[in-house]
């Protein structure tokens, strides 16, 4: 398409938006609301994903050793543990060292240690996993392999609940994706209906244009541009609304405990661009569907 004719079509599209500004404003606002909901879901998932990732990176397995395990067995055990696929490090902490660490941590409550006749803590191995083994299912397999070793009395992997949260998160992600799909379809439907309303009001104009030799492309092009502009403005509007909400929420959350626990971030640029692209596509698709039903020579 030549630049001149493209400018001509854009001018016609903008003229049409201005002359039907109320209808177009309603469409853009409705698309904006749909995009706000979709992008709010995205923001939630992005941040939950970050949180889960940070938790997953901290995954470690604690292996409690049988109290009768001697020092030579500990060295053998370390070798056996390191041979397990997915284990990156195994750090032995003797029960004496563990007690000492505990006393240091609980200095203010030192009285509770005064009456201890013997060290109640077991020897342990603190086992770190390689990044590729930090998937919940893999952690479970590695833990069961460690637990099967004869010197190991029991294992604990403190983030067992991450698995459960991941499950819930995946369910939410599925539901959220489905809802995003619904809102996307709603945007398409709204654009399609607005443009169809415009078409009905311009039936006669289209007929006359066809009679004077206008091609379908000539008639359709400005409306495709209009749909794309509606999608673009709606997408930008939705993201601006989300950003304002984000700033308000973050400025309040930061003052509380959550700032130490989770760093809430806004949508990364690629995701924001993907949302605007989807919004533009919804505008185009709405127009396409309207024309498919409407225009016949």
């Amino acid at each position: 398409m030549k630049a001149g004719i493209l400018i001509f079509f854009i001018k016609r599209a903008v003229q049409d938006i201005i002359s039907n500004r109320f209808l177009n404003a309603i469409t853009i606002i409705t698309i904006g609301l749909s995009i706000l909901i979709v992008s709010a879901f995205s923001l939630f998932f992005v941040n939950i994903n970050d949180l889960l990732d940070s938790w997953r990176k901290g995954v470690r397995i604690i292996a409690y050793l049988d109290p009768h395990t001697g020092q030579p067995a500990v060295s053998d055990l370390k070798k056996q543990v390191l041979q397990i696929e997915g284990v990156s490090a195994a750090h032995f902490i003797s029960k004496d060292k563990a007690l000492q660490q505990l006393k240091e941590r609980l200095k203010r409550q030192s009285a509770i240690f005064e009456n201890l006749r013997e060290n109640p803590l077991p020897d342990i191995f603190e086992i770190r996993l390689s990044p590729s083994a930090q998937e919940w299912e893999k952690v479970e397999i590695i833990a069961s392999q460690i637990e099967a070793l004869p010197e190991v009395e029991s294992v604990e992997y403190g983030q067992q609940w991450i698995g459960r949260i991941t499950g819930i998160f995946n369910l939410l992600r599925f539901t959220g994706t489905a809802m995003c799909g619904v809102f996307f379809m709603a945007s398409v439907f709204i654009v399609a209906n607005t443009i169809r309303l415009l078409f009905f009001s311009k039936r006669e104009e289209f007929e006359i244009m066809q009679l004077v030799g206008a091609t379908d492309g000539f008639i359709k092009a400005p409306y495709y541009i209009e749909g794309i502009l509606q999608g673009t403005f709606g997408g930008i509007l939705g993201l601006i609304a989300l950003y304002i909400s984000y700033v308000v929420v973050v400025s309040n959350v930061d003052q509380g405990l959550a700032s130490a626990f989770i760093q809430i971030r806004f949508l990364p640029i690629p995701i924001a661009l993907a949302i605007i692209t989807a919004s533009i596509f919804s505008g185009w698709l709405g127009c396409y569907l309207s024309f498919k039903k409407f225009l016949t020579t």
Partner: protein
Amino acid sequence: MTDTNPENSIIRLFHVYKRYASHSALIDISLDVARNELLMVTGPSGAGKSTLLKLLYLGESASEGQILIDGINLARINRSRIPFLRRKFGIIFQDYKLIPSKTIYENIALVMEVAGYKSSFIQKKVSSVLRTVAMEDRLNAYPQSLSGGEQQRIAFARAVVGDPQIILADEPTGSLDTDSANIIMSLLKEFHARGTTLIIATHDKSILRKTQGRIVYLNEGRLENKTITIDKKPAITL
């Protein structure tokens, strides 16, 4: 019924029928129109004059028979080529068919815009044709603010601005007073004199009397043997 030399024909109809669910609008029409000919199609209301014109610019399709426009068989034309076929025509409708939301200038310029002309050329051409119809001072007006005669002059300007090979005028003076009708008819004759093929569908006998050209008579969808070639201002009775 063939009235002209086929080799010089720009329009040819062979045994054309147009049927609707309840009746036949055109029955077995065969007709040739020569380049630069002025043909008047007359007959009573409902005779099929407008339908005949619609078949030429593919406003409707023939139910049976063949129509050739400048060698293009309308029965076989690709849908995407229809707009290009229509650019061969300048059409004047009885109800003007001006776009109410566009100014006079925009209505006329549309014909050239769809053909992809540059805006500077469009501007010159539209101004020139508006001068021809003595409406250059109304280019920013909207159609609804014009009288019937003025609207028909704009419809004429739109029909001729693209320099069409054929002008189709469907009852061009149908709802106009005598003065406005005379203006429109003299404009049509002027363009015909420049070499454009002109087909006028009319039941206005005064037009038939005042206009030199071939007349064909349609009655209940059939071409009747009343075809008369008139010379200068003949007094005819149909």
